[in-house]
């Protein structure tokens, strides 16, 4: 009976290129090792084992990514595409995750940013006991590694099934991680609930889009979808509906308007190291997936999705810049600024050329490192109740700690796009690509919203340097090695990419030259 069943469909053992999948396998292996550490290592030693394991493992994954350079191949029987842009994005994600892990591993000056015992209610005896014992919920490390593994698979996914699985693998740990803050735990749990409900809602829409596209094309593989699109007239209901719903799901992860409502609340409520991880790595991964879907799957329908994306990009840039002006909380303001930056990168995506792709890749690197550095500084400004996130508490920081305030001012200028910072080079590259791609009105809107955004960045600088400090105001904690290293990396990358961008631009151009593998 067995051979009768098999005669209709000969099943063969698939051929898996393990070398090309190595970065993802290493990170997932790290996650499993992290769970084993959680299970077997005694409580006191857990952090001391997790932190070096994570950092060394991420370094190994980065080396594995670099060793793949030049590959242009569809691996794992068509499920994973390994090509220049994907390797660039994966390397960026691993580097940003490395710096975020430095922040996660930080245990000074207070204690860890993460809750001591997530299951205990604040004010009860068991919470007091766990605080006295100095516990930290160290499951953060394996959860982060699972999320990073999902982020590596998301832009590399060559069919929609792998993409959906990667989306969920990257999102589910992040939902939990958002709820694990030590201070202001109620806000953190609220952020987790909001992120979870909205994220589950949007991935259901993403899945419905996959079903529609599958019904149209007969396959979930992006190359075969592209084939079906080229054969069709391009105005089939299933196809258009599917593309719209897929776009909705992906734009939610980016935080593009009108799917941005989760971003300010989640960035504000989550523990700041996790905000740094989300703000840098998730955005990079989501852009990688959006690029792959739009360029490979629906490249033949550019005339259909471009006007749609124009509208989204304009709305995102304008609303991100304008609403950020009214924000009084540093993390919330950075969340709206990240919405605006997502809009700027979307103008590069719309260009849909090799130049657009390379400028997008460069901008993602520049923006990612600046973001991680900025959130690292946010973790340092503390008062008796933990981090002081309200902008009014940051007044006069320039007088108390000129170095930290100066570095934060440098990051803000990089966000604003002032020359000699990586933000300027990134914006210039993206806008140049957009103009070359025929989207000049978008660039005009982009420049105008950059000017508006510069207003609130400069306002923070003015508050820090030109107003009197509160007598009982926050102090800047002396950064330990880990946070100091994170800030130093952020400053170094922002400065180098601003002053000497050519090597990085060439690297991005080389990566983007071959476009995506089909």
């Amino acid at each position, binding site marked *: 009976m067995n051979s009768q069943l098999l005669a209709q469909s000969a099943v063969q053992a698939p051929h898996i290129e393990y070398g090309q999948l190595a970065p993802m396998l290493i990170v997932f292996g790290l996650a499993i090792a992290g769970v084993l550490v959680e299970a077997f290592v005694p409580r006191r030693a857990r952090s001391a084992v997790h932190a070096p394991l994570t950092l060394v493992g991420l370094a190994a994954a980065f080396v594995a990514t670099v060793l793949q350079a030049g590959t242009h191949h569809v691996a794992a029987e068509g499920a994973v595409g390994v090509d220049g842009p994907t390797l660039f994005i994966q390397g960026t994600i691993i580097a940003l995750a490395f710096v975020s892990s430095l922040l996660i591993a930080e245990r000074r000056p207070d204690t860890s940013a993460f809750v001591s015992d997530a*299951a205990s209610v604040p004010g009860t005896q068991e919470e007091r006991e766990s605080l006295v014992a100095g516990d930290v919920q160290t499951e953060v490390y394996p959860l982060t590694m699972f999320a990073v593994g999902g982020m590596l698979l998301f832009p590399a996914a060559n069919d929609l*099934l792998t993409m*959906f*699985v990667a989306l969920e693998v990257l999102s589910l740990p992040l*939902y939990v991680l958002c709820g694990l803050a030590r201070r202001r735990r109620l806000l953190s749990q609220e952020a987790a609930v909001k992120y979870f409900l909205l994220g589950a*809602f949007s991935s*259901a829409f993403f899945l419905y889009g996959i079903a529609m596209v*599958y019904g149209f094309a007969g396959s979930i593989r992006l190359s075969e979808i592209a084939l079906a699109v080229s054969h069709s007239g391009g105005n089939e209901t299933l196809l258009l509906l599917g593309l719209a719903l897929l776009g909705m799901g992906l734009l939610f992860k980016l935080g593009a308007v009108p799917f941005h409502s989760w971003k300010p609340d989640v960035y504000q409520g989550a523990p700041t190291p996790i905000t740094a991880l989300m703000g840098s790595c998730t955005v990079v991964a989501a852009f990688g997936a959006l690029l792959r879907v739009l360029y490979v799957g629906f490249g033949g329908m550019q005339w259909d999705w471009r006007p749609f994306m124009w509208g989204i990009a304009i709305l995102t840039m304008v609303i991100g810049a304008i609403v950020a002006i009214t924000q009084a909380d540093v993390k*919330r303001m950075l969340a709206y600024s990240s919405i605006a930056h997502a809009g700027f990168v979307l103008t590069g995506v719309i260009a849909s050329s090799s130049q657009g792709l390379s400028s997008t890749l460069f901008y993602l690197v520049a923006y990612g490192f600046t973001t991680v550095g900025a959130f690292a500084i946010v973790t340092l400004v503390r008062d008796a109740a933990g981090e002081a996130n309200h902008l009014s508490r940051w007044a006069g920081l320039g007088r108390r700690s000129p170095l930290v305030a100066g570095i934060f001012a440098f990051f803000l200028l990089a966000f604003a796009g002032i020359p000699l910072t990586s933000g300027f080079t990134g914006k210039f590259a993206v806008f140049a690509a957009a103009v070359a791609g025929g989207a000049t009105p978008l660039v005009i809107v982009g420049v105008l919203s950059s000017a508006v955004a510069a207003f609130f960045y400069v306002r923070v600088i003015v508050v820090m340097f030109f107003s009197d400090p509160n007598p009982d105001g926050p102090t800047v904690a002396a950064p330990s090695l880990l946070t100091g290293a994170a800030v130093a990396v952020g400053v170094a990358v922002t400065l180098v990419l601003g002053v000497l961008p050519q090597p990085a631009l060439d690297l991005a151009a080389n990566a983007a030259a071959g476009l995506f593998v089909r």
Partner: protein
Amino acid sequence: MHIVYPAVVAALLFSVGVYGVLARRNAILVLMSVELMLNAVNLNLVAFDVWLGDALRGGQVLTLFVIVIAAAEVGLGLAIVLLVFRNRQTVQIDALRDLADRDAEPAERPEQVSTEIS
């Protein structure tokens, strides 16, 4: 059976799920509505798979994966809702107002022990 029947049924189920997510105030019911949406998509995928006669059975495989992922997601979601319930004694999402765009400091949470289902 024409493909329209399962496709329309799936679309109707999906719409009921969307209504549930948007209109329900109890977090558990919102989770149930998300599950309904995911299952509507499953129905759609299986129907398309049979209609297309896919040799690779892509729709059915994807349905299997979606069932697994939906189970994991709802397990996680219940854990997060449990976390919130422990601290606030309510699962009404209306009560989660502290993170919102407003000028003043976050308002005091009204102490409500509310077990109503809506």
